[in-house]
């Protein structure tokens, strides 16, 4: 059966709105776009500065795509040998790969080329940094809890993909700095037991450096990895739409609503404007600050190396971990070589990343909480989680600092051996110290919140009572201010009970132990009764 849809009447409308309605009608008749407009056009998103960090990542990715497309018009990913004939004097007549020569041409002979190289590379550094900051926000506010555990894993995959994109990208110009980076990767791959030598052989198309690697990295960098990033970003955003965005606790905000502003017109203006702001900041930096001056490093050659050889910052934690291994960690068993100085860093870093990836599932198992969570935690209200996060960040930071051990030595006039020994010790001590400080700080802040909720702020007014005692008058908080202080979740440690066979299985013991670790020290939110009592006491 056919249905006819009569177009809306247009006689009483002005010219421009007649055009708009005609156009809207035309499109809707072919795409059903009305559904999307209805569902999405006035969708409410909550407003907080920390919610924009994911957008910084998304927008810097768009900037990367735009500037990268420009670069692909001029870059040639070939390792064939050529003599440089461009204008940069210290490279004139030097034999190099076409990849390096085309990068030099982009920098010195294409108008706007150097600017686009800068935009692309600065945007890449910002992309990974903002993903990291965004992940930290998600972690410390507990936004990874049900139903968002899968989105956390997707985001984690995006983090790894972004690092891979960066690594393949900066290796493309085939210069001494990135070439030595590839050499290091080759050494790490070779150290893998049983298959390492063959993995390296396959990756480089023969011996290192070979003539294939730049072309292969190019394919990964402009085709495979961006496709995966776009796919995972689409999934990531789809889930945000399906789950709706989380919100911070506040008066009027509940688990059953979202309070904020609609997409049209407010978010279109703010988020759309923010895209131009992020792009603008990247462009500002790219106009004035140099990055990756490959003409100083020269074409890759296995012989030269620069003092101060480090990868881009997001690979720094891996380089640092390699530098912190003590001497001699290699054994020969059954005639085979086991390079622990490579395997231990790999295991530690992969292990660290795995713990990050599965953390939501660990916490869900410990709390046993299967409810949906749409109100975020203030970090102080999840003291153990915040402390674990602080310890994790510190651990990562010590590994990252290890990568600049030689630069710290020259800049702070220290011996590099001392710097390295200190970092080796800090790798274990610093996370423990950070954990303790974070946990104690959270508990103290919770106590302060409780005291403010019950007794109000110290107003600074001292009053003398008839009996002679001095008291300080406390200004009570309003109900709206108090809500944020008292509305958080509270968990108690799990009680161990034997099962039907009268035994307690190991898994349950472990879970109870972790539950105790998480929730033994806690500050219970005040109840209504306590508040009323507080009012009675009159301060």
């Amino acid at each position: 059966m056919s249905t006819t849809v009569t177009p809306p009447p247009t006689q009483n409308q002005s010219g421009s709105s007649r055009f708009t309605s005609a156009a809207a009608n035309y499109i809707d008749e072919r795409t059903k776009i009305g559904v999307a407009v209805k569902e999405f056009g006035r969708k409410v998103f909550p407003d907080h500065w920390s919610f924009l960090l994911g957008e910084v990542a998304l927008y810097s990715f768009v900037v990367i795509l735009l500037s990268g497309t420009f670069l692909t018009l001029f870059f040639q990913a070939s390792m064939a040998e050529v003599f440089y004939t461009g204008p940069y004097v210290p490279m004139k007549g030097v034999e190099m790969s076409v990849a390096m020569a085309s990068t030099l041409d982009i920098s010195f002979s294409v108008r706007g080329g150097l600017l686009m190289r800068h935009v692309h590379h600065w945007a890449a550094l910002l992309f990974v940094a903002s993903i990291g900051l965004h992940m930290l926000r998600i972690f410390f506010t507990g936004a990874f809890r049900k139903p968002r555990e899968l989105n956390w894993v997707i985001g984690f995959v995006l983090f790894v993909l972004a690092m891979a994109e960066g690594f393949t990208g900066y290796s493309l110009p085939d210069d001494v700095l990135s070439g030595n980076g590839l050499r290091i990767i080759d050494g790490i791959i070779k150290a893998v037991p049983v298959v390492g030598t063959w993995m390296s052989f396959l990756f480089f198309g023969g011996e290192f450096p070979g003539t294939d690697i730049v072309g292969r990295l190019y394919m990964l960098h402009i085709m495979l990895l961006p496709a995966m990033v776009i796919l995972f970003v689409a999934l990531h955003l789809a889930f945000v739409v399906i789950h709706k965005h989380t919100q911070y606790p506040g008066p009027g905000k509940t688990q059953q609503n979202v309070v904020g502003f609609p997409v049209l017109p407010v978010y279109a203006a703010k988020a759309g404007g923010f895209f131009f702001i992020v792009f603008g900041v990247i462009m500002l930096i790219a106009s004035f600050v140099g990055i990756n001056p490959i003409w100083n490093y020269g074409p890759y050659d296995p012989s030269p190396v620069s003092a101060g050889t480090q990868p881009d910052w997001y690979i720094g934690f891996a380089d640092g971990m390699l530098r912190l291994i003590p001497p001699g960690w290699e054994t020969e068993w059954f005639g085979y070589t086991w390079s622990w100085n490579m395997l231990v860093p790999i295991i530690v870093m992969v292990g660290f990343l795995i713990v990050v990836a599965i953390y939501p599932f660990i916490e869900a198992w410990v709390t046993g909480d299967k409810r949906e969570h749409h109100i975020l935690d203030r970090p102080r209200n999840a003291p153990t989680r915040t402390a674990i996060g602080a310890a994790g960040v510190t651990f990562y930071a010590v590994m990252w600092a290890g990568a600049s051990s030689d630069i710290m030595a020259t800049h702070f006039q220290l011996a590099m051996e001392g710097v390295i020994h200190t970092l080796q010790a800090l790798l274990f001590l610093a996370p423990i110290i950070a954990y303790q400080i974070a946990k104690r700080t959270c508990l103290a802040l919770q106590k302060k919140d409780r005291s403010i909720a019950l007794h109000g702020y110290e107003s600074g007014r001292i009053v003398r009572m008839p009996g002679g005692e001095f008291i300080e008058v406390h200004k009570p908080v309003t109900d709206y201010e108090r809500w944020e202080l008292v509305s958080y979740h509270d968990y108690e440690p799990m009680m161990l009970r034997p099962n039907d066979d009268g035994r307690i299985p190991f898994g349950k013991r472990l879970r109870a132990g972790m539950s105790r670790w998480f929730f033994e020290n806690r500050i219970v939110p005040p109840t209504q009764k306590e508040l009323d009592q507080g009012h009675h006491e009159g301060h």
Partner: protein
Amino acid sequence: MAEAAKYNGSEGAVVPAEGHGAVAPAAGTAVIATDAVQNPGLPPHRKRVTDLDPKVEKRAERTVYTLFYVSIAGSLGAVLAYMFFPIESGDLWDIRLHTMFVGVGMTLSLLAVGIGAVHWGKAIMADHESIDERHPVPSDSATRAEAVEVFTLANEESGFSRRSLVRNSLIGALIAFPLPGITLLRGLAPQDQDPVTLLKHTMWEEGIRLARDTGGYGVGGAIRAADVTIGSVFHVVPENLSQATNLLDEKAKAVVLLMRLEPEKLKERDERKGWSYDGIVAYSKVCTHVGCPVALYEQHTHHLLCPCHQSQFDVTDEAKVIFGPAKRPLPQLPITVDDEGYLVAQSDFQEPVGPSFWERLK
């Protein structure tokens, strides 16, 4: 009592939709307080100064469109800068100015429109808080039942779970089908070479002279023993490097450091006493950690430092590791002089150079 309290607004359980029927999700170890504080609701809306004073609103509007015009100016400026700051002279100042002015123009065009749009959204657009309702993420029970029905029907009509031979052989076929594709990836590496054999040999052979490394694909002159003074370091490649088909691949294994010390400072074991010549020693330049060039030589401490991960090697003691993450000493190239006084290799290295690998000792 505890059940009802689970739906209390402060605890965070989502109210199940109509007809959901299922049991509410378990709260685990969460404490559900019976007399928790109640949500006071949204605070009263506070008007902005642009809502109260029409003159301020007009000014905000002016700011917004001025910023948009500035953005247009910036875009035009960038195009003009592109045209009027040429770089074809190759002069570095020209390139700097071009980059800076095109960049500043684009920066202005971007920041101005962004800040203008945000200011419009913040100061002028209506800012009353909107509220959307959340619905539980799981589909409602009717939909779930229908979904189960879909799968049950598909299963009955195909006999998927009943026909085990059909099912299992299908799974086998699906596992097997990617195998040829994966096999094609073998072509990433040469078919006729063995990586372990390649790693164990370099271009050095008996009689090959040590030549100066002049960078890249270049080979400098051969080195006389008399040229190597105490405290000097020469960066060395085999004299016949230019004849290699894969020059950089061979160079990556063959680079050598040549140094001269006072002979009494050298601690050599008996088998290696013939490997140096009058205090002149040659070591592989490829770090045994992960392969960077170990190029820093300190002439008084006789230490070799690798700048990548700070491994240190002692040239007086067979280049063994004294600091840093490396383990094996740098392989030593046995050298001597030929009858014209030039330094030559006596043989290839006696062990594989560079980073360790699984089959190194085989």
